[in-house]
């Protein structure tokens, strides 16, 4: 069940990222080729209206941002100011870490609820009642987007959906931290085998073990490890 949710989340944001890129690319290509006078082709191109591309791209990226932010909690990518708490002893830091994660859950929970109310009152209420064949009375049908003419409540439902998912992720990470003392970071795998070699181009510099993230209580800082392990006189400057 959890795996399905994880994969769905990854799949959605991957698709939105790629999709938006392709759409803007074709909109631009279309704009230029419609200006070139090739018989038949030009008429055909002029017949296609790509005016909605920009709007769709924005919608896709907003959705990507909301779900990606939830995914980011799971990958530990959200940056913070952790200079202070990372210099505290483990037990004190652990309290701050839990506080931070719960604060995240509270904030996203509130925002999700506000968003859900907003979406409900701006068209979802009408749409649901209408679909169920109930009396919609004086309920507003809600506005639509300018180019695509989609109901805005569907578009805006990214806020409650994404925020609730993010809230869930914060709680999940907090629960795991309380139980195991681990926080999601990309770096930990490398703590074991510090061998010479290149950093993979996949490195996610916003998720490195620096002071933009709290250090967990299970692992030691990779940086300190290196400083201690290193012999003092290794490759001094001036002696090539």
């Amino acid at each position: 069940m959890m795996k399905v949710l994880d994969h769905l989340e990854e799949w959605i944001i991957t698709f939105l990222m790629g999709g938006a890129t392709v759409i803007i690319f074709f909109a631009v290509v279309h704009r230029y080729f419609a200006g070139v006078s090739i018989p038949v082709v030009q008429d055909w191109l002029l017949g296609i209206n790509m005016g909605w591309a920009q709007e769709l791209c924005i919608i896709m990226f907003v959705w990507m941002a909301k779900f990606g932010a939830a995914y980011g909690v799971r990958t530990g990518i959200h940056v913070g100011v952790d200079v202070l708490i990372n210099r505290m002893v483990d037990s004190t830091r652990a309290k701050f870490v839990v506080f931070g994660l719960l604060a995240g859950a509270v904030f996203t929970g509130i925002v999700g609820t506000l968003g859900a109310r907003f979406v409900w009152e701006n068209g979802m209420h009408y749409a649901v009642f209408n679909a169920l064949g109930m009396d919609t009375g004086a309920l507003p049908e809600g506005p639509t987007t300018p180019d695509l003419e989609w109901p805005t409540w569907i578009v805006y439902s990214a806020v409650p959906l994404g925020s609730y998912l993010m809230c869930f992720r914060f709680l999940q990470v907090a629960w795991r931290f309380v139980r195991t003392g681990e926080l999601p970071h990309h770096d930990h795998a490398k703590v074991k085998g510090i061998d010479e070699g290149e950093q993979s181009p996949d490195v996610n510099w916003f998720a490195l073990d620096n002071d933009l993230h709290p250090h967990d209580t299970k692992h030691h800082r990779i940086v300190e490890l290196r400083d201690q392990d290193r012999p003092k006189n290794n490759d001094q400057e001036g002696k090539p």
Partner: protein
Amino acid sequence: MSTLIIFGLLIALMLTGMPISISLGLTVLTFLFTMTQVPLESVALKLFTGIEKFEIMAIPFFILAGNFLTHGGVARRMIAFATSMIGHWYGGLGLAGVLACALFAAVSGSSPATVVAIGSILMPAMVKAGFPKRFGAGVITTSGALGILIPPSIVMVMYAVATNASVGALFMAGVLPGIALASMLGMTTFYRAWKNNYPRQPKASWAQRIKAFRDSMWGLFLIVVVMGGIYSGMFTPTEAAAMSAVYAFIVAVFVYKDLTLAEVPRVLLASANMSAMLLYIITNAVLFSFLLTHENIPQEMAAWMLDKGLGVIGFLAMVNVLLLLAGNVMEPSSIVLIMAPILFPVAVKLGIDPIHFGIMIVVNMEVGMCHPPVGLNLYVSSGITKMGITELTIAVWPWLLTMLVFLVIVTYWPPLSLWLPRALGMIP
């Protein structure tokens, strides 16, 4: 009073180590809920409409393009080209590293990406060629910072978002300072290499140079796509970003074939992850600046500072110190998004050009990326070289000092940033 409460709350929340985006959002919610009558529903709407701007969408596109380029063998060919051109001078590979970083910066919008792309290939090569590890690490860590000064630049887009400045004009304004900083870093490299008599590469023949140029041409052409496209008005900056993402994908997968199609979803996911984090900070920063405007804080602060008789010179000095301090605890995007809306109105009142102000902030951010405790470039370099942060800090200081000197030049000599966009008629 409300200024003190808002900033006190924000700083207190940030120091607990929670994500910056969350502390921004919680500050806004707490303040609105306890001190004002603003309906909280409008907050929910702002969360969606806050990033509903097409300019902002340049950020995910540039990140995607950058990630394709990092994987795509573009960096390796740029290094080969740079080495064939200037590798035979003192500092050989080091100088080539500065040039390669500058070239890669012209196709990528991020500093750590530049360090990864150039550093992971060049740093091991430099050690093999007989350079001390510290020298290579110092050169690449700092030259990689050019990534956000030489256009395209994600931090410039952030500044444009926060202040409504023109992205195109900012990009053009970054060109000359970028070249100037690259030259200064190159001179430092040259001087240190000459003093310590570091190895030089054999001089390449013109045939080799032309071959290296032709190999790297696909990557270099991206500079034309982005800068030429924006300047000629063919693309908006966001469209240029999308085009460069598609172009980088084609070059990486079909031309250089350094990336297989099966790896593409992973690159997309990684880019989406990074972009979403930045967009989430933007969303909450938009909320925060909505709160500031609502409470009239930027205007009050501007009036207060002008009241104190702060001149242009004093103000710019203060801004630099403030940003350098912030660079000790935050990464560039957050700093720009939080600080720019506050400092910008004062700058405008003092008659400082918004574009010049932006370039100065970007250079300032570059410095912050190269020193501990949070410098992103340092940590990326540390991953490549397996050097500790303390050792790296010592390694970068000659170049970091050069950057600080350059920061003073950029701050107090506006024509350096303003001449080109003015000559192109992009700003009055």
